[in-house]
C-alpha cells in the first residue's frame, strides 16, 4: 500500500473541491448567480478586450507643453517680482527649460536673487557678474511636479470617463508618462478620444475692447484669442489676468434657455462666487470672456453684478456639444494635453468568434492529448487525464479568484499548458517503468518513480516559469494574458500531476490489490 499521510489526503481533496467551487461561477450567468446564497463565490473570469470587444487607448502626457507653461509662469513671476521692487531688467525670455534676463544695474544682483528665491524656493538661480540671471527649477521640484501632473491627469481622465457612463473602465499609469485607458464594449472611441483630447482649461478673463485685436499681433498684457460667432471667427484682446478658473466650479449642467437653445448652467463655490461677484460689481459695462483652451466660448457685457455665483453659457452649441462641455467643466481641466499614441479596438463580433474558435481548438487539443496519454500509458494515462481535468478546473478557479484577464493568447496558453502539464506524468510513468524493469517490486517502483522524477519535474518547471515570468515582465496586454495562464497552469500542474495522481493511484491499489501494474 502506498502510504500517504491523512492530512495530505484531506488537503489534496480539499483543494480539488475548492477548485470546483470557485470555478463553478463561470458556468452560470450573472443573473443566476445573483440568486445564489451569499457565501457562494461569484467572481468570474475577466475577459480581455480582444475577447469581449472594446477599445484600448494609450495616452501620452505632453510634458513639453507642461514645461512651456511652467517657463512662461516662471518668467511671469520674475517680471512681477522685479517690477514690484522697481528693479530694472532687459531681455526677459522663457527658453526650453530656463528663463533668462539681464539686470540694468548689476548692483541689484543680490537683491534680485533673494527676492526671486523668496517668492519660489524651488527656483535655482545662477548669475553672471554683468547682471545676467538664469532661472530654472531644481531637479527634485521638477520630478515632483511631473508626478503630480501625471497623477492629476489620471484622476481627470477617470472622472471624464466615469461621467460618460462607460461600463467598467480600466485606467492605469504606464511607465512615467503614459496612461492606459481600456473601455470594454466601447465600439468607436472617437468621442472618448475627443473628450480626452481637450485639456478643458476654463478661464474667466476681462476683454480689453480698446485694443484692435488682429490675429498674430502681440500686445503686452493681453492674448489675442479667437471666438466663433455665427459661423465667423472674430478676435478679441483678452487680458492675461485670470479672474476665475474652472477650479472654482462646483457644478455645470446642460440645459435650455427660454428660446429652447442648449445652454450650460454653472455654479461657483463660495470663494469663486465672491470673486465673481466683486469682479462683476466693479466692472459694469465691461466685457468679459469665458475662455476654454485658448478659445473664447462667449464674451458677454456685464449688465448687472452676479452675486449668487451662478451663471449660464450660451454659445450656440448643439445639444451634444452642451452636454460634452458641461461634462468637461464638471470633471475639471487636465494639467497637460494628452496625445493618443496607440489605439486598438476589437468589435464584439470578432471577440465572440475568437472565444468560440479558441474554445473549440482548446477542447480538441485536450482530447487529442488525453487520447494519446491513454494510448501510451493506458490506466496510468487515464489517471494523468483526470489530473489534467482538475488542472483546468483549478486554473479556471485561480483565474476567477485573482481577476486575471483571459486573452486570446491566454486561451492558447491553456492548450499549451495541457500539453506540458502531462510532462510530469510522463516523467513519473517512464521512471516507474524503468524501476520495474530494473527488478523493483511494484510499490517500491511507484514510490521510486515519484521520488526520482521529482527533482527533474521541479527543474524543468522552474526553467519554464523563468521564461514565462520574463514574458509577463516585458510583455503588453495580450502577451501578459498568455504568461498568466501558462504560469498558473504550470504551478497547478505540479499539484495535480503529482499529489492528485498519487492519491488516485493509492486508492486504486488499496481497492483492487493488483499484482502487476498496467503501465
Amino acid at each position, binding site marked *: 500500500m502506498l502510504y500517504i499521510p491523512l492530512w495530505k489526503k484531506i488537503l489534496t481533496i480539499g483543494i480539488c473541491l475548492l477548485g470546483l467551487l470557485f470555478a463553478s461561477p463561470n458556468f452560470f450567468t450573472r443573473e443566476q448567480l445573483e440568486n445564489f446564497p451569499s457565501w457562494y463565490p461569484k467572481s468570474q473570469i475577466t475577459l480581455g478586450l480582444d475577447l469581449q470587444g472594446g477599445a484600448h487607448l494609450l495616452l501620452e502626457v505632453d510634458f513639453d507643453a507642461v514645461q512651456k507653461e511652467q517657463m512662461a509662469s516662471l518668467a511671469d513671476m520674475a517680471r512681477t517680482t522685479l517690477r514690484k521692487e522697481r528693479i530694472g531688467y532687459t531681455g526677459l525670455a522663457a527658453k526650453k527649460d530656463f528663463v533668462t534676463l539681464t539686470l540694468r544695474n548689476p548692483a541689484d544682483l543680490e537683491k534680485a536673487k533673494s527676492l526671486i528665491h523668496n517668492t519660489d524656493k524651488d527656483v535655482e538661480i545662477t548669475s553672471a557678474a554683468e547682471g545676467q540671471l538664469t532661472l530654472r527649477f531644481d531637479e527634485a521640484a521638477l520630478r515632483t511636479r511631473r508626478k503630480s501632473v501625471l497623477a492629476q491627469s489620471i484622476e481627470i481622465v477617470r472622472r471624464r470617463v466615469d461621467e460618460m457612463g462607460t461600463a467598467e473602465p480600466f485606467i492605469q499609469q504606464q511607465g512615467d508618462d503614459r496612461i492606459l485607458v481600456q473601455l470594454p464594449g466601447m465600439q468607436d472611441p472617437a468621442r472618448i478620444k475627443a473628450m480626452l483630447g481637450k485639456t478643458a482649461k476654463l478661464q474667466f478673463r476681462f476683454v480689453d475692447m480698446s485694443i484692435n485685436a488682429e490675429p498674430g499681433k502681440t500686445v503686452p498684457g493681453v492674448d489675442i484669442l479667437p471666438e466663433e460667432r455665427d459661423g465667423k471667427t472674430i478676435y478679441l484682446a483678452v487680458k492675461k489676468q485670470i479672474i476665475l478658473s474652472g477650479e472654482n466650479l462646483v457644478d455645470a449642467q446642460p440645459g435650455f434657455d427660454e428660446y429652447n437653445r442648449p445652454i450650460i448652467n454653472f455654479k461657483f463655490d463660495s470663494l469663486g462666487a465672491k470673486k465673481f461677484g466683486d469682479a462683476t460689481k466693479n466692472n459694469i459695462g465691461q466685457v468679459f470672456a469665458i475662455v476654454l483652451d485658448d478659445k473664447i466660448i462667449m464674451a458677454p457685457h456685464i449688465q448687472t453684478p452676479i452675486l449668487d455665483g451662478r451663471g449660464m453659457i450660451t454659445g450656440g452649441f448643439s445639444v451634444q456639444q452642451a452636454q460634452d462641455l458641461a461634462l468637461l467643466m464638471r470633471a475639471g481641466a487636465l494639467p497637460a494635453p494628452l496625445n493618443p499614441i496607440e489605439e486598438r479596438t476589437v468589435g464584439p463580433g470578432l471577440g465572440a468568434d475568437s472565444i468560440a474558435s479558441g474554445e473549440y481548438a482548446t477542447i480538441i487539443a485536450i482530447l487529442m492529448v488525453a487520447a494519446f496519454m491513454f494510448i501510451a500509458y493506458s490506466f496510468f494515462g487515464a489517471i494523468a487525464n483526470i489530473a489534467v481535468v482538475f488542472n483546468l478546473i483549478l486554473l479556471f478557479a485561480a483565474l476567477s479568484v485573482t481577476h486575471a484577464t483571459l486573452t486570446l493568447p491566454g486561451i492558447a496558453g491553456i492548450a499549451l499548458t495541457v500539453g506540458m502539464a502531462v510532462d510530469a506524468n510522463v516523467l513519473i510513468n*517512464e521512471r516507474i517503468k524503468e524501476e520495474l524493469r530494473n527488478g523493483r517490486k511494484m510499490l517500491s517502483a511507484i514510490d521510486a518513480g515519484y521520488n526520482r522524477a521529482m527533482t527533474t519535474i521541479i527543474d524543468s518547471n522552474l526553467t519554464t516559469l523563468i*521564461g514565462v515570468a520574463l514574458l509577463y515582465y516585458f510583455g503588453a496586454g495580450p502577451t501578459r494574458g498568455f504568461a498568466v495562464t501558462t504560469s498558473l497552469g504550470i504551478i497547478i500542474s505540479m499539484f495535480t500531476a503529482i499529489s492528485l495522481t498519487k492519491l488516485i493511484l493509492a486508492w486504486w491499489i488499496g481497492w483492487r490489490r493488483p499484482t502487476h501494474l498496467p503501465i
Partner: protein
Amino acid sequence: MGLHIIPYDTKINFVSKKNIIFAILIAVAVICLGSIFTKGFTYGIDFKGGLLLEIRTSGPADIGKLRSELSDLVQGEVTLQEFGSPNDVLIRVEQQPGGDAGQLVALNKIKAKLGTGVEYRKVESVGPKVSEDLIRNGIYAIIGALVAMLIYIWFRFEWQFGVCSLITLAHDALIVLGLFSIFGLEFNENAIIAVLITVTYSINDTVVIYDRIRENLRKFKKMTLANLINLSINETLSRTILTSTTTLLSLLGLYFFGGPVIAAFSLPIIVGILAGTISSITVSAPLLLHMHLREDNGLEKLSKG
C-alpha cells in the same frame, strides 16, 4: 498495457554522429542568420507602427478596388489581404508621417472612405513611440530569458552545462527567427512569445537530459563520457519524445481549429518546439563532450547536486 512508442532498449549512438548533426544544424543556423541579415523581417504594426483594420463587408470584397481607393488616401504602402473568408479583409497601412497625430488623421480618412456599410472587427493604430518600446521590450525579454536560464543551469549543474544549454537555446531561437524571416511571416508581439516558448520548452528537455547525465555520472564512475552521454540520452528519449508529442498535439489542435489569429500564433511555436526537441537530444548533451567535464571539475564536484 500502454503502447511502447519508443522501445525501452533503444540505443541510438547520438554521440558518434554528432559531427554530422552539428554540421547540419550549423548549416541551418547559417541559412537563418543569412536570411535575417539580408532579407530581414516583415514587421507587423506592433514593431513598425502603422494602421491595421480587419473589416467584414456585406458581400465578397473587391480587394483590388479597395486597394486603389485607399492607396490614394494615405502615404506609403497599403496592403490588403483576404482573411479567413471572402468577406473579411485585413488592411495594413504603413506608418504615416506626422507622428501619432498623422496616424489618427489617416485612420479617420480610411474610416470615412469605407463608410458605415462595413463591420469593423478590429482597428489598431500604433504610433512610432509605442512600436519602439515594444521592439525594445521584446529584445530584452529574449536576452533576459537566455541569461536567466544560463544562470539557473549554472547554479543547478555546472558552468559547462550552462554554456552548452545556452548554445542550444540560441540555436533554437535563431531557427524560429529564421522561420519568420525566410517565410516572411508577420513579426509581431506573438513572434516574441514564440521565441520565448521555444526557449523555455527546449531548456525543459535539456534539463531532463542533464538531470540524467548528472545521475549517471554518480552511478557509473568508470564509464566513458561518450557512452554515459549516449546512455542518458537514450534513457530519457522516450520521455522527451512523448512530452513533445503531447505538446505538439495540443498545438496542432490550435493550429487547425483555432482560426487565423491562433493559427498564426501556434505555427512558429510548433516549429520551435520541434527544433528545441531535436537540438536538446542531439546538441545539448553531445556538446558536453567538448567541455572537459571530468578533467576540469573532477567527478566529486559534479556529483554534489
